[in-house]
């Protein structure tokens, strides 16, 4: 079945350094939809950005990601980390075939230090 892999459970960075959170997925369907959700402490997850177009960069709130179907990847990046970026980040996979449900990765906790 479909799956999402986020290899890092915890990423710790110093403020100002670039951020890259890894996400790869597996699906037999040719048109996947990929999402990044962010969850700050004591809050609920909220949509950060999404994409379903191959090789097209998607940006929102300083973050960006590009869906690469050739490598089944959708890594989240930011050029310069801020303290407020500290949060739990989930990558999720959806499609037109699964009744709206998203498959979430295990999440990556991003901790930004001064």
């Amino acid at each position, binding site marked *: 079945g479909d799956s999402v892999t986020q290899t890092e459970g915890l990423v710790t960075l110093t403020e100002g350094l670039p951020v890259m959170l890894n996400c790869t997925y597996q699906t037999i369907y040719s048109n996947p939809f990929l*999402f990044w959700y962010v969850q700050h402490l004591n809050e609920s997850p909220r949509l950060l950005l999404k994409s379903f177009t191959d090789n097209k960069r998607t940006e929102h709130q300083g973050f960006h990601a590009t869906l690469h179907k050739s490598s089944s990847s959708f890594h989240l990046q930011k050029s310069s980390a801020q303290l407020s970026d500290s949060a739990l980040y989930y990558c999720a996979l959806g499609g037109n075939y699964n009744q*709206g449900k998203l498959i979430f990765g295990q999440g990556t906790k991003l901790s930004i230090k001064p």
Partner: protein
Amino acid sequence: EAAVTQSPRNKVTVTGGNVTLSCRQTNSHNYMYWYRQDTGHGLRLIHYSYGAGNLQIGDVPDGYKATRTTQEDFFLLLELASPSQTSLYFCASSPGQGANSDYTFGSGTRLLVI
């Protein structure tokens, strides 16, 4: 603004107890979901629904029942609660599938089974 409201915010029950978690959405969304969130496991789908009276089984359904009474209301039932069901539960809604799989999450219900 579209919203998903969960109640209660916190619940403590004893092993073997009966618990109902409630979720109401004012988004006019067709799809509703129940997830549990546990450290190391991310978000795991319990049950979901794509309309009033419809119910679909998720990935971790054992020990849980659900009912979608109206377009707005989705309930999660634990009839014989066990300590393994101690978790943070999120309800979410979405307008559709594929590109419309944007989830709106509720604030969560923290359940402790002692």
